[in-house]
């Protein structure tokens, strides 16, 4: 009853004309960037973050979240028409989606992807709504040692699944912690790692690093080559996009499977939608009456991964909103956005900002309906975006990045830092260092150091406080166990297989 009352309040917020408008802008932009290979939601949200500082915070989070889940709808279009996933999470959709397109069934494949996204995306929001408040109540009992242990566990999971080389992922995370530590120490006012620059006394703005590493790094990597992929014909007209009754019947278990697996995997930090879509595809194949047909163009091979990919969003928002622990690069940027707007993501977030949380949840229901309406009839139109030449798109991304960073501080020093982090982002891609652990280290670095120092103040310098409390001891033990995975051959083989498939 309580949930229904809150949800009613949330719809009152989400249905305000301004919030409806920003929800539409978010899901529309999300679909476009989902369609465009090489430009992901993390980069787009980072680029647009500075522009949200003049907005109402509820409208801003509704728009940014719209980009996040909207991109997942759009990601399937390129997988099906080009055999090129718009997002890494749409890799699995290529297997059967592209085969269906080659058989002249691109329309039903795109239609099934949109319907699966809608069904599972909505289930993900229902689960978020039901699971987040109890998790927040549980986390209210946490003190500094538990928070430190929780952040260690979150980082360990992200590091474990971020790249084939655990060493490189760990090093990227540690560099993130170092960047987070730059500036004036809040406990003692000591300036750290400022290289004598007064501009660094306040630390490096998160926006500068996120836009540099994600947006510029991604564009520079894409600019290594001049060419593009060849697209299959786009079906025209709504009738040609609707799947048959038999297609929907074949997909009924896939809708459920994708919804449940996507949400559960989403709650775990680090796993992400790519792994969720692979697991969902694997489960669908395992329980299917015709597993041998998978990979040849079966509709359930499209529905299961697309469903999991979309349901994962609801799951990923649970730890971000209730614990302040993001599980991926994109949720790290969303978390940083909440902090930059003056909010405190954590157990009190829902209690202190009910209109923001419930408004966001309600907007996600509305956004999913908007996406279904947008995606079914307008897929042919969105697919035309793929014809946009790179030489027209990339200058726009560079320009928005420069203006975005300059608009935050009005400092050309920050614009130089942006260029430097762009080069770092490119080098990381080139040398196979994953970017997500760096961004997570950067977002959590300050809070992690604060929690550790507060814990040690409580114990007068005794490190044993971290293992003397059962909850923090369990989480630290799990973190160590996760990081020790490469020592166990079978477990490491599974880890590497999951990452290789995700790549």
């Amino acid at each position, binding site marked *: 009853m309580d949930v229904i009352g809150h949800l009613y309040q949330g719809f009152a917020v989400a249905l305000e004309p301004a919030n409806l408008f920003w929800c539409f802008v978010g899901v529309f932009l999300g679909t476009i960037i989902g369609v465009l290979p090489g430009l992901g939601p993390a980069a787009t949200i980072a680029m647009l973050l500075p522009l949200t500082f003049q907005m109402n915070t509820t409208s801003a989070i509704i728009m940014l979240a719209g980009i996040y889940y909207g991109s997942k709808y759009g990601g399937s279009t390129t997988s099906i028409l080009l055999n090129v996933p718009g997002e890494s999470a749409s890799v699995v959709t290529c297997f059967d989606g592209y085969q269906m397109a080659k058989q002249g069934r691109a329309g039903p494949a795109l239609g099934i992807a949109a319907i699966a996204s809608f069904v599972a995306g909505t289930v993900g929001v229902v689960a978020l709504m039901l699971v987040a408040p109890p998790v927040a109540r549980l986390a209210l009992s946490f003190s500094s040692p538990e928070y430190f242990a929780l952040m260690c566990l979150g980082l360990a999971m992200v590091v474990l699944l971020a790249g084939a080389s655990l060493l490189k992922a760990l090093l990227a995370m540690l560099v993130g912690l170092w960047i987070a530590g730059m500036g004036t120490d809040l*406990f003692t006012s000591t300036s750290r790692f400022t290289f004598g620059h007064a501009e660094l006394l306040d630390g490096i703005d998160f926006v500068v690093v996120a836009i540099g590493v994600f947006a510029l790094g991604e564009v520079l990597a894409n*600019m290594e080559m*001049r060419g593009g992929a060849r697209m299959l014909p786009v079906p025209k007209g709504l009738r040609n996009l609707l799947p048959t009754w038999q297609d929907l019947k074949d997909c009924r278990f896939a809708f459920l499977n994708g919804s449940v697996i996507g949400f559960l995997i989403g709650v775990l930090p680090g796993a992400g939608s790519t792994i969720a879509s692979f697991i969902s595809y694997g489960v669908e194949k395992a329980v299917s009456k015709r597993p041998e047909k998978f990979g040849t163009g079966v509709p359930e091979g499209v529905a299961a991964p697309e469903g999991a990919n979309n349901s994962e969003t609801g799951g990923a928002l649970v730890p971000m909103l209730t614990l302040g622990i993001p599980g991926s690069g994109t949720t790290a940027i969303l978390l940083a956005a909440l902090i930059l707007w003056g909010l405190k993501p954590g157990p009190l977030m829902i209690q202190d900002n009910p209109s923001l949380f419930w408004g966001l949840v309600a907007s996600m229901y509305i956004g999913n309906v908007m996406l279904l309406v947008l995606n079914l009839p307008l897929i042919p139109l969105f697919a035309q975006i793929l014809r946009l030449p*790179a030489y027209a798109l990339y200058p726009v991304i560079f320009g928005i990045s420069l203006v975005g960073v300059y608009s935050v501080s009005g400092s050309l020093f920050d614009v130089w830092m942006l260029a430097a982090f762009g080069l770092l982002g490119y080098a990381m891609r080139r040398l196979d260092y994953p970017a997500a652990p760096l961004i997570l280290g950067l977002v959590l670095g300050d809070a992690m150091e604060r929690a550790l*120092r507060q814990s040690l103040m409580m114990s007068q310098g005794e490190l044993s406080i971290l293992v003397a409390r059962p909850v923090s001891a369990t989480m630290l033990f799990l973190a160590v166990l996760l990081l020790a995975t490469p020592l166990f051959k079978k477990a490491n083989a599974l880890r590497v297989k999951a990452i290789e498939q995700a790549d």
Partner: protein
Amino acid sequence: MSGAILAGLGIYIVTEARGWEYLGPDGPGPGFFPLWYGITIIVLSLVLVGRNVMARASEPAAATNWREVGRALAAWAGLAACVGLLKVLGFLLAFALFSFFLVAVMYRRPLAPSAAIALGMALGFYLVFPVALNVPLPTGRLGF
């Protein structure tokens, strides 16, 4: 190579952290956390270097495609030049030149359409940011 650079970074962090208080009467000082992650960076990067050396001894590394790297670095150099010119020419002119470089040089489009795209980009940014959104752009010595 990247391992050696990271080891150098770790040494720098540890050296700096040793200059700050490690443990004071109120608990850990500003040097406590950086000292530990600095040491961890040194250890992990040395392991990375060691592994790479051993891997190269058994199997030579895949050749780097310098043509691809060169294209990306050329685009970055254009960006750096654009940032350097912001103070002198202002955003609109510097960005138009950078866009022209990307379209005409990096993507080898004919000069006239490239110039039109570059000018269109600059005009578009002017209309969207200062005019429509009231977001200021860096101005140069020419006053815009």
